[in-house]
């Protein structure tokens, strides 16, 4: 049997997967096992598949994904904490033919940026909001988020979230689904291949809705934060399935 060399394998006809060319070559700064990288990929793949990379303007938040602009090879701005929907509104109103999206975490979208989120949704801005909910402030080191589950420990709720004094986890997705301005509202997750495929479809749909001028699409992705939750990636995904998805039910809440 002839010896098989690496060069014999690396051929276009053998290619089964490649990273989208809309990723820059910058290594992702996310913790191994975190869902952010997957969601970045899905968004960029969707943009590539739709052939709209020259027509897309993104808005990155403050949080773990503050550096999203370094990884996404599209024109993109970085917003002050919580204000991404306002930036996106500003951009979309002067460039209605462009595809505009925000990429935000739960602290950014559901705490400091609640007003901007609600009002962009209520105005029915023709943009896409991608909302990564991992129930914690990741970048600042695991503090309690508006989405932290009851009883869940964090560095600012070390004995578990006491809803009597710390309030209840905020279901932003249910909230915005009630607003007449939103068109497509769904909650997804990306910790299994099947769920990744479903999430991708929703993300594609969010961009397609913009093309058809349908109004605001709001996609929540329930994700893990193994570092913040102080678990291994595998354990964190298990915990996510057993706990997060109980409170944050997956599915399409609204599709008009």
């Amino acid at each position, binding site marked *: 049997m002839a010896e098989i060399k690496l060069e014999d394998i690396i051929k276009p006809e053998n290619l089964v997967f490649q990273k989208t060319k809309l990723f820059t070559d910058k290594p992702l700064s996310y913790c191994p096992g975190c869902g952010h990288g997957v969601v970045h990929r899905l968004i960029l793949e969707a943009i590539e598949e739709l052939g709209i990379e020259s027509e897309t303007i993104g808005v990155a938040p403050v949080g773990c994904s503050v550096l999203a602009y370094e990884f996404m090879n599209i024109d993109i701005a970085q917003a002050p904490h919580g204000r991404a929907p306002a930036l996106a509104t500003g951009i979309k109103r002067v460039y209605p033919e462009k595809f505009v999206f925000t990429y935000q975490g739960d602290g950014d979208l559901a705490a400091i940026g609640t007003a*901007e989120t609600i009002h962009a949704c209520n105005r029915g801005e023709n943009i896409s909001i991608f909302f990564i909910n991992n129930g914690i402030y990741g970048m600042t080191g695991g503090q309690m988020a508006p989405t932290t589950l009851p009883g869940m420990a964090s560095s600012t709720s070390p004995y578990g979230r006491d809803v009597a004094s710390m309030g209840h986890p905020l279901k932003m997705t249910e909230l915005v689904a009630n607003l007449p301005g939103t068109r497509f509202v769904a909650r997804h997750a990306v910790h299994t291949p099947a769920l990744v495929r479903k999430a991708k479809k929703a993300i594609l749909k969010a961009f397609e809705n913009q093309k058809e001028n349908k109004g605001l699409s709001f996609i929540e992705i329930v994700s893990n934060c193994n570092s913040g939750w102080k678990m291994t990636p595998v354990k964190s995904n298990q915990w996510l399935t057993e706990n997060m998805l109980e409170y944050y039910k997956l599915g399409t809440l609204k599709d008009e």
Partner: protein
Amino acid sequence: MGELRLMKGNEAIAEGFIRAGVDAYYGYPITPQSEVMEYLMAEKPEERTGMVVLQAESELAAINMVYGAACTGKKIVTSSSSPGISLMQESFSYIAGSEVPAVVLNVVRGGPGLGDIQPAQSDYFQSTKGGGHGDYRQIVLAPSSVQEMYDFVNLAFDLAFKYRIMVLILSDGAIGQMMEKVMLDEQKPRLTNQEIKDRFDSWALTGRTPGREHNIITSLDLDQENLERHNFHLQKKYKEIEENEVILEEVSLEDAEYVFMAYGTSARICHKALQIARKEGIKVGLLRPITLWPFPEKKVKELASKVKGFLSVEMSAGQMIEDIRLAVEGKTKVAHFGRYGGVIHSPEEVVAALKSKIIGG
């Protein structure tokens, strides 16, 4: 062909936004500047020029809509009054750090806190020293008439785009609310998307043009040495602005022994005070900074070695006087005469203050 109208300052500047070919106004109501958005909404600028006018949910949202849209190379503006401007400071700092051009109007009212709604000049520090965080500057233009409210729109955008910097038009309730005649010039066309791409594709978010790197607008750089380099770059730009963009008005300074220094509404009061004092034989002139930053430091230095004293007349407890003192370097007498909280000096009391604080003081 010009068109002569009698307008409020707030209306004139709103008309100025439309005629300057501004792409979008994002704002939130607050007295004494609500006429700006009211006028714009009534004028249907989307029909006149395609200009966008949107009422935001807060000043925070408004300035961040401005920030986002300004990232795209379009001409974007907002307006507010003191408490609302305070809310916007964080984003002013972002705009400075990420170097996008934008124009903001502050129709100043009395403070601190909710204060009142009468004209004041107590936001000078906030405007010229940076109300937000970090080492940054913004160009500050101080109109003192309705005509200047209108004219400074084009000036502000020229400077904003020349330096990719925020320009603050610092007005006050008196100039915003009073009517004077104003000569309107012809409508400037808004730039097309292609023209914007041709001019600003090196930095603006226009959608990644095939063949170029992606454009990023950010004020973040986690590498402190990179961030220091960025700060050097910003400071160099600010220095260049200080060298080249000072604008001022001189009134009767040729033979002046004393100088009123005032901007905006208080400069108008001082002009009248000057006429009264001159009738009494007091040789007083008026130096009116039109750019508050860059401050007319050279002119003040030059006068400092010639005159017997400066009276800084401000509708504040004394803010611009600090810049005057820095420029005068102790060479001549400098005193402050202020009214606070929305009270405006009478010309007669300005003359009396000149006599008591400078001539006899």
